[in-house]
């Protein structure tokens, strides 16, 4: 890809004395969905957190839209235009749904048409707008977490395992919303263990193992090659 929105070059991250990421090289193309795949413990979430600045890389460069962002604080990185949906959803339980959304809009309040889009994708959020977010179900919390990232346009969305622990019907709702986001031309880097969701949304894919990227290519290439998938992820697809 010629003009990636996000580039990682030789990024190494340590947590305490442990080396977690051993030199990540990754390009996230503009206006597409890149899937970050790999088994548990491969370093997918660590990569996301490093991009977001929640962990500081020991070495390497991270570039967002031509600007170096490694070494900046998480709040500075967020203001460069990254919407972040963390693995644990990061909902503010004491705040209402509305207050959660309000806080996510850096410009003040979210625009009404954007809110309409959010409520169209996730009607439950409108129903519970004035309820405390801590009382939402797991699926509704995930919807809120995604809604928070999309209340304003961002250069890049980092979405960490949105389907984690959710029922298929709710995953389908999330998938529709993310497809819609993709159709609007958003650039997305997403971690996903649910392969059918990854296949449905992903344009390109990067597979990680043991803190390194071991394969990159298009999602179509990966999902059509069962042997490759098994080698990379120990994943056996049921033939459908």
């Amino acid at each position, binding site marked *: 890809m010629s003009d990636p929105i996000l580039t990682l070059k030789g990024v190494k991250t340590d947590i305490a004395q442990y080396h977690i990421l051993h030199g990540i090289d990754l390009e996230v193309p503009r206006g597409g969905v890149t899937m970050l795949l790999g088994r548990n413990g491969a370093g997918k979430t660590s990569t996301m957190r490093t991009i977001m600045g929640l962990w500081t890389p020991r070495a390497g460069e991270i570039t967002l839209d031509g600007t170096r962002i490694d070494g900046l604080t998480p709040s500075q990185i*967020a*203001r460069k235009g990254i919407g972040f949906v963390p693995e644990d959803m990061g909902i503010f339980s004491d*705040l209402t749904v509305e207050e959660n959304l309000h806080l996510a809009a850096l410009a003040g309040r979210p625009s009404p048409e954007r809110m309409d889009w959010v*409520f169209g994708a996730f*009607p439950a959020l409108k*129903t519970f707008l004035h309820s405390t977010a801590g009382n939402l179900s797991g699926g509704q919390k995930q919807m809120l977490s995604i809604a928070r990232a999309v209340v304003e346009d961002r250069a890049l969305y980092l979405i960490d395992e949105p389907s984690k622990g959710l029922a298929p019907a709710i995953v*389908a709702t999330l998938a529709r919303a993310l497809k819609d986001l993709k159709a609007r031309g958003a650039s997305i880097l997403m971690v996903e263990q649910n392969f059918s969701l990854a296949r449905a949304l992903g344009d390109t894919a990067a597979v990680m193992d043991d803190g390194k990227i071991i394969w990159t290519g298009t999602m179509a290439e990966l999902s059509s090659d069962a042997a490759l998938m098994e080698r990379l992820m120990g994943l056996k697809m049921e033939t459908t």
Partner: protein
Amino acid sequence: MSPAPQQAPQNAPQHAPTITHLPLSERLKPWLPVLLVPVLIVAGYFAIPQTSSWLTLTVSGLAMGMMIFVIASGMTLVFGLMDVINFGHGAFISFGAFVGTTVLLMLSSMTGAPSLFLNLLAISAAVLAAMVVTGAIGWGFERAIVRPVYGSHLKQILVTMGGLIVAEQMIYVLWGGQEIVILRPETLKGAITFAGATLEKYRLLAVAVGLVLFLAMRAVLRRTKLGLIVRAGVDNPEMVQALGYNITRVFVGVFIAGSALAGLGGVMWALYQEVITAHMGNEIMILVFVVVIIGGLGSVEGCFIGALTVGLMQNYIAFLEPKLALVSNIALMVAILMWRPMGMVPVVKAKG
């Protein structure tokens, strides 16, 4: 613009909330802490034989509670936001009292005049000076003492204790070792009589100041974006950063505001006792800790209820059974923690 129900089949199932009719006891549960203060006042009414003494004690209990609230509110937010235990908070109380008293003594012509306006003007000047000085000390304290020990409670306790001792000794250096007597301004001396009870004017003023401050804080926390950031930060500071807010700057702001409020509390307490010492802040801190813990660490509402409860309890018990006065607050803390281990208004923390 309500979502069309036809949409439902392919969407996640629409949960139309069905509402059970809860019995009264269940519906009252979340309000129980709020009811604690009126219940205590009513209990006091039946326990204390003369209505007039009950009224006097209630007003002085509320006044004491309000002053403790002013002092404790900043501390509970500092704890909630950054998980920082600041034993040095007591030093801000003492500094506030000494700076405020110095200003009041300098303005003795204004405090001595029989004009409410001039008296309040002098108090305002004293409060302003005290808050500016303690806010500035708080800023330095956070930078030099608290910042290096983020994340370690043990180090925080040791180092802020050290800071407290240094600050107390500074007061000895600057103002000398004697206690200083500071009389209330002319028009705030004495009491008014209401329904046979004597109510000290100054205590009524303290109640009013505390109440206004509580309502103002609540409005800021509930209605402004800054308040949202603070409340969200108590819950999950990392996510607040990832949304693009510099939590450190917010925290420093809260620390400074909390220190300035302790300074205000110090001036109020000085005029309440009419005598100040370098270790007065440290003495009040026991009550402040009790209030912060029973209120629920990080909760301003809980802190308010806790402060009023402690203030009333202290005054009622001191009247009914003076020997128990010291024990009563600790007993109250034990009882409340057995009832609600996370404090009266527990604050949900994202991480343990």
